[in-house]
């Protein structure tokens, strides 16, 4: 099977006054129609990896890669118009906080319809029907009412579901979710993940799930990439997490408090300079 996404030796550099900061340093992976988790702490370059694939890297940054292909399309050399067409249509992204990613002065329904109609030629009535169906698919009970609400009138969990509905309405093949549930309460978090899980499974999408929470990612994804200082330190199947070999992955797993484990003090992660080499 041909991979959906191939990334080889991806670099993202930010020139600053004090020199060049390399946020991503030679990241390579392939993605089929599966769920891949990218885990790392702040500054590990996990979000910049996702943004580079999506084409949302700030303009002053430099991106280079030996290969960055989505379904045979060279993402680095694709003209801007083609990338825009891909974005939202075949590749979609969910961001952390729906408060900042939904337009505050447009109703939720209209935003979903707009998204759909920029990518497909459908009538207004048809678009509305599909938007409502999509809202139901993300388990919003009263879809017709939520359709006419503004983002500030719904809760965080509801907003994130609306965001997922908006991102998935055009039927993308690849979904990049950057900390999609970190701003939500734990119980809501699981509901949203359940919805995401079902949709990805049913539609056969590829999913890149970016998060700082190693345990959450491993419980949700098939495969996990662990990043540190802009590099991949370990790649492993989610089920094999307990057999992680890299001390960073082990340390990351170990330092979380667990209910029932009486460890005082908690083991701390000793960062070795050679990991960042």
């Amino acid at each position, binding site marked *: 099977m041909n991979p959906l996404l191939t990334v080889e030796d991806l670099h993202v550099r930010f020139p600053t006054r004090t020199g060049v900061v390399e946020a991503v340093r030679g990241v390579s992976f392939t993605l089929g129609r599966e769920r891949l988790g990218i885990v790392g702490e702040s500054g590990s370059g996990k979000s910049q990896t996702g943004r580079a694939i999506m084409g949302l890297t700030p303009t002053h940054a430099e991106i280079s890669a030996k290969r960055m292909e989505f379904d045979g399309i060279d993402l680095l050399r694709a003209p801007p118009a083609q990338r825009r067409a891909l974005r939202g249509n075949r590749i979609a992204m969910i961001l952390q906080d729906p408060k900042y990613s939904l337009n505050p002065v447009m109703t939720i329904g209209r935003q979903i319809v707009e998204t759909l109609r920029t990518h497909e030629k459908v009538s207004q009535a048809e678009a509305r029907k599909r938007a409502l169906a999509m809202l139901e698919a993300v388990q919003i009970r009263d879809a017709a009412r939520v359709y006419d609400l503004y983002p500030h009138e719904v809760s965080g969990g509801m907003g994130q579901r609306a965001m997922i509905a908006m991102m998935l309405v055009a039927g993308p093949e690849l979904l990049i979710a950057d900390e999609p549930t970190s701003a939500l309460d734990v119980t809501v978090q699981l509901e949203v993940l359940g919805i995401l899980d079902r949709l990805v499974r049913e539609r056969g999408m590829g999913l890149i799930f970016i998060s700082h929470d190693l345990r959450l990612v491993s419980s949700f994804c098939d495969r996990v990439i662990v990043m540190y200082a802009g590099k991949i330190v370990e790649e492993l199947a989610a089920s094999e997490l307990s057999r992680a070999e890299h001390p960073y992955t082990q*340390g990351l797993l170990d330092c*979380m*408090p667990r209910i029932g484990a009486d460890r005082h*003090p908690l083991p*701390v992660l000793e960062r070795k300079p050679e990991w960042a080499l």
Partner: protein
Amino acid sequence: MTTALAIDRLRVTFDDFTALKDVSLAVESGESYGLVGESGSGKSTLLRAVAGLAPVSGGTINVNGKRLGRHRDKAFYREVQMVFQDPYGSLHPRQTVDRLLLEPLAIHGFDNSERRIMRALDEVGLGSGFRFRYSHQLSGGQRQRVAIARALILEPSILLLDEPTSALDASVQAEVLNLLEQVRADRKLTFVMVSHDLAVIAHMCDRLMVMQNGEEVEQLTAAELTARRVERDYTRNLLVASEGFRSGA
């Protein structure tokens, strides 16, 4: 044992929204007490009400046997200090660490400020190299250590912790939690800690209260939580949720 903090039917009302509905609790001296809940549960409001940062509209708060009035006096702040959630927002952006730590000493007229500042920095594991840095020259974990040093420099007996690690990376969280346990043991402090993370509370606290919508759901000991001896469904849901995602659940 004496009661460090006793709260009786505390009520907090913002305009016409009641954020805290008649919550009562008692924390023994030297104990570590946790408040768990999701957003809007009123757990942070309770902490802020004790600190005098939220409007109390009913009920009483007693600290070390003294009933608190509407206005907190200086002596109160010598007893009770607080560490905030967001390490990026809790340090003044135009002040050096030195200045941040000097301010409480100056307000309360402490002598020997030079030595106290050095000792406070040592205690939180920062050392004198950090003394003249501005907050933007510090990482999140370092900022939270400065915030802890600032809270401890007045030598309080009660420390209020409002999600002290939820903005930090997991590995940094472990370091800060260890630091907090260390200072509690060293100084025999009473902790009241708020978190949305059951595991953190279970790790840090002897007893805890689960809260929802401004009300108490139940009070438990950490041992009961560990043994899953919980009464209420809501607590059980939180316990399940804290274990991560299960497909098909």
